[in-house]
């Protein structure tokens, strides 16, 4: 967007919010709303406002950006929001987190778990995976996104390097679905199958397929994927 237009919007927002003298809760609620509405400029403005008012940036990400994105996920699941709206919400979330993240002290971030994610080798359809990445980040997980057409060994190597608890894989094609089993086989070969849980998703696979290849979980829809990751992380923490 043109710099002049951004400044104009900032001034407009400033007038509105300075007049209101908003509380911290109100700012965070507005931030969540900006994410839900997919309003990138407003989200960015509010993120700056958070810093100006010395509100904890981590709290702003979790109670503002992530809270908004979780509602977006629910609305998408319920057929109240669709891909265009969801993508703009994601842009708004990233616009605000880009402003806030550099101001967070690393020790303040509680560790929720790390997921290595990608589309398996031979497949390049990645929109479902990309949505899941956004929703997982909104749920507080660290996500290492390997992209699409990811070679089998890369999933395992990255999980080892990053000490990730979960590998998440997706595919839209049955011709590339066997690649998921190959990743699980390599985890066994490397002797780390008990340390890394696996979750699969995508139009070509199912709960039945997940069971057949020995995956730990299956998400039928994107939002299910978030729940499955949460469940797997909980079971890991319980020692399962």
């Amino acid at each position, binding site marked *: 967007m043109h710099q002049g237009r951004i400044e104009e919007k900032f001034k407009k927002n400033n007038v509105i919010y300075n007049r209101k003298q908003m509380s911290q809760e109100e700012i965070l609620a507005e931030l969540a709303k900006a994410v839900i509405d997919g309003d990138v400029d407003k989200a960015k403005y509010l993120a700056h406002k958070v810093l100006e008012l010395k509100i904890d940036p981590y709290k702003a990400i979790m109670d503002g950006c992530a809270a908004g994105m979780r509602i977006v996920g629910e609305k*998408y699941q319920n*057929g109240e929001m*669709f*891909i*265009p709206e969801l*993508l*703009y919400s994601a*842009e708004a979330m990233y616009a605000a987190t880009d402003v806030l993240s550099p101001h967070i002290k690393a020790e303040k971030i509680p560790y929720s778990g790390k997921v290595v994610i990608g589309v398996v080798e*031979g497949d*390049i*359809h*990645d*929109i479902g995976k*990309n949505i899941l990445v956004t929703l997982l980040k909104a749920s507080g997980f660290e996500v290492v996104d390997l992209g*699409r*057409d990811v070679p089998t060994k890369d999933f395992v190597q990255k999980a080892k390097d990053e000490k990730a608890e979960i590998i998440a894989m997706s595919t839209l*094609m*049955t*011709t*590339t*679905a*066997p690649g998921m089993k190959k990743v699980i086989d390599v985890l066994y070969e490397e002797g780390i199958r008990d340390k890394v849980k696996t979750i699969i998703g995508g*139009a*070509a*696979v*199912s*709960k*039945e*397929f997940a069971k*057949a290849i020995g995956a730990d979980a299956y998400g039928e*829809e994107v939002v299910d994927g978030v729940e499955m990751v949460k469940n797997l992380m909980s079971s890991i923490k319980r020692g399962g």
Partner: protein
Amino acid sequence: MVKPIERVVAALTYKDPDRVPAAPLVCGASRRVYGVTYDVWSRDPVIAAKSLIAAQELIGFDGFLTLVDLSVEPAAFGQKVLYPVESTALSAAFKGDMLIKSVDDYDKLEYVDPKKADRMRDVIKICEILVQAKGKEVPTLGFVYGPAGTLSMMRTLEKLSLDLVKNKSAVLKGLKIVNDVLFDYAKAQCETGVPGVVLDVLYASKMIWSRKTYDEFEGQLCSKIADEIRKHNALVVLHNCGHGPFFDTMISWYKPAAISFHYVPDDCKDYADTKEKYGKKTVLIGQADNPKVIYPGTPEEVMNHCAEQIKVYGPGSGFILATGCEFPPNASLLNARAMIEAAEKYGKYPMA
């Protein structure tokens, strides 16, 4: 002996055939019957047609579908396509090599003649061969990917979905050109004598676009293709394998003779509800589950799964047993045969 075409016509006109017609939508999987690799099958129309005929003779299914892959239509405009040796061909747009690299590029799309265009002319040829070789016995349905889907294969669904909010007129301009070409593509398929054409309207589903967005960006354009198909006395059949398809929207725009689908419509709760709500409005084609049963299952599991569907959808006719999407290209062909056997065993008419 009842021919597949008689069986399908009876189902489409709500008369009792001898049994439920069964069409496992064997397309790319047919290459394994003929003994060629996927990349060869995807690019040689004569081999593709011979493969389909060989698969029909082996498996005994009741209809051909001329779906090669979803990059046939974008290839006509110049989109680069990848041809893996043993997997479905893919648009390179998903790997970053998009024909429409920026919003300005929508304006650069040009009309192409489907009869001369790369890949489209091959599918027209497949239609011709199948109609000539088997037209009196086995119905052949043409296949056209809708304008929104086609455009997304040159831009990606993500970028197209963002563009349509902020650059609406550019997207609509691109869609108009694409639709003009698809219109003539459907017409050319009809001219081969196919009794129907399948329009793939994937974006009319709750996981992709809203009804309003769908109406504006595909419904009003693509319905002209449906009208053209009908002008040729061919049937309009819709395909939508997305989650929660908008049957009401699809019926309203296209007035289809039949809908092929994977998931229950967004306003239905299960198979029975779908039959109750839509079974008299349009013939239902489906709904054997590829990821859950057809791909990972045994022939016995496939038969049980199909028996459940026949029990719900079969009574009153107006039903063709089929997979919810193309038969998985690498699934056991015995599972395609199991669908026919399920129709023979559980799908006899008259049915209670």
